[in-house]
């Protein structure tokens, strides 16, 4: 989750949707915005093909996120700790990949993805805590699903609401480019420190998904970047490869990743540096708008 001030979250929530909570109203809003989009069609002519491709990607990711969350919730509610632990890191990857879009909803993002530390920073307590990380606490810290059934139900409802409301997001080139850099910033500030998955230590899954999300934005824009600055395009291809190669060292046989706690200081430093070396040229993608 992206750390935002409480005021910003409230404000964003009320601007996007004036206090409505059910997915029904969300859908209504979605169709409304859609018509506005087609009639409005102002600046969005720029990079329209790329923007559409990216939105399709995000929708597909969030479709899968909803399906996987449903499986996760089922495991939690049937008391299958092992199964829930197995689904947890991979289900979250769909969310992490599409975060530039998913986190547009200042009210939903914390409900799905808040860490206890984020809430405390906002002056809220454990009673306000919902979403994946709350269940993570139950699974890894208490080794149980008992008492988390309601949280699971709420998580699924929120995931479905997110999927519905995402239709309303106006994707712009600006959102894509800022989003790519934000994804890497998230890696630099919370994944590489092991602060995202403080109980499950599955941070490298989130790490990989964030990088994939940024890479998707890059490959979508790549032809445009090649036109404007071929050197930058090459550099980005190279730097993505460097990060991916480094991450591959920590893959496990089942296609997952080792726990964060297995990483040495040298490992995290090397990963952090590779991410920073990617982030700097990634922030130059805006050159295509110059």
């Amino acid at each position, binding site marked *: 989750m992206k750390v935002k001030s409480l005021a910003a979250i409230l404000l964003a929530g009320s601007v996007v949707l004036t206090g409505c909570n059910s997915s029904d109203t969300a859908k209504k809003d979605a169709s409304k915005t859609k018509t506005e989009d087609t009639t409005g069609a102002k600046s969005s002519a720029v990079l329209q093909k790329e923007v559409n491709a990216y939105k399709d990607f995000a929708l597909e990711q969030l479709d899968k996120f909803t399906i996987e969350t449903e499986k996760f919730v089922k495991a939690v509610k049937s008391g299958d700790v092992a199964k829930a632990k197995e689904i947890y890191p991979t289900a979250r990857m769909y969310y992490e990949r599409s975060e530039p879009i998913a986190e547009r909803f200042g009210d939903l993002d914390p409900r799905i993805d808040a860490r206890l530390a984020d809430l405390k920073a906002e002056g809220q307590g454990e009673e306000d805590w919902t979403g994946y990380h709350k269940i993570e606490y139950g699974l890894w810290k208490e080794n149980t699903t008992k008492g988390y059934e309601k949280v699971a139900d709420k998580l699924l409802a929120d995931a479905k609401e997110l999927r519905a409301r995402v239709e309303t997001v106006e994707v712009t*080139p*600006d959102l894509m*480019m*800022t989003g790519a850099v934000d994804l890497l910033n998230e890696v630099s500030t919370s994944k590489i420190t092991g602060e995202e998955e403080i109980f499950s230590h599955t941070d490298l899954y989130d790490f990989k998904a964030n990088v994939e999300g940024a890479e998707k934005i890059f490959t979508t824009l790549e032809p445009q970047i090649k036109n404007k*600055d071929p*050197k930058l395009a090459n*550099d980005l291809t190279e*730097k993505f490869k460097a990060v991916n190669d480094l991450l591959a060292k920590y893959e496990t046989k089942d296609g997952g990743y080792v726990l964060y706690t297995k990483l040495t200081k040298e490992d995290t430093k090397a990963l952090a*540096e590779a991410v*920073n*070396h990617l982030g*700097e*040229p990634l*922030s*130059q993608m*805006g*050159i295509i*708008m*110059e």
Partner: protein
Amino acid sequence: MTETNNDEKLLDKKFTRRQMLKMTGAGAAGIAIGASGMGGILKAFGKDVFLDDDHSATNKVNFYGKHQSGIATAVQTNIYFASLNVLVKSKAELQELFKMWTPLAVRMMNGETIGVEYKNGILPPKDTGEAKGLDARNLSITFGVGPSLFEIKELGLSSLKPAELKDLPHFPKDQLEEAYTGGDICIQACADDPQVAFHAVRNLIRAASGKVSLKWSQAGFNSFPIENGKKQTPRNLFAFKDGTENPNSSSESDMNKVVWVQSGDSKPWMTGGTYLVVRRIQLHLETWDRTALKEQENTFGRHRDSGAPLGKKKEFDAMDIERKDENGNYIVPETSHVFLAKKAKARIMRRSYSYSSGIVDATGAYDAGLVFISFQKNPEQFIKIQNHLGRLDKLNEYITHRGSGVFACFPGIKKGSYIGEALFNTL
């Protein structure tokens, strides 16, 4: 960075005056334009090729010249010293790196930002911006290369390594930490402002993203008492004056003797350059502060307040270490820092700064001390002095050397050339 790339391409071409006139459309009428005017013309065409020292800038140190800035330059109040490792894999890429840095250093030493900003708000600004509104503040930027650079096989520089460029030997009581030792490249940024010095290093490293990684860095400060309108020797954190015996930096002959590598002294690319030795020396302030004044003065061999040699009145009175009292004892104790250093009969140019970086984890003591920096035409000069201090130096009780580096600093940069060109030209 696109603009810089253009600069490089134009720089590479080294086009003639005729071509230049043609290009600028000046024709016959433009004949009178001197070489220095061309940069301005090209600037008007949106190209910064012959970016030059702007002599109209306030508090400005020149970038171009026979020697690099930051060595004979009057000591500033602040330093940000950075040691980098290179990530580039070829000579050509390394050369590119120094070419790319050159116009950025010139601009910052003119008190300008590193580039003209984009109009497009989607891009992060080129310059990080924190030095905006500040003038050049006598910024100097000094570049050097460490022994490890010549050992990177892919770079193919091994045959160009000067014999004297090697890691310093282990000295008695060294407690070097890897986190403050060595490096392939050093950048010494000094300025009369901490933010300007930091900004310089930050922007050079950012522009080199993916090509270098920061190995260690240290900020430092100096303060100069003013007497009769004249800057006095600064004091270190033990309150003693530091740098009294330096060569006269405005005397070329003195500097040639002590600091500047002369033709035939070393590899040809080092002629006009010098060697930088850096030591991160922790001063144990807590123990020092409970040491009697007389003992403090016997430790250094000077009077604390005046800076005068023991038994004398003024800072610049001759040290004359052989002086004895009526009982035949040395007036300047044989174990004092100055006595031992003088005995070494070697000279160096010290350009040190104090540092204060929080506390030492293990002890809770101040992590404060001296970013000792000296320049000499051969690191042997420093080694000789340090070996003489050896185990005997009374100062050892109060200090611990924790970081170390030795770097070959390129000669000065000619207009139209770039940092380290002599090294790459010999390839």
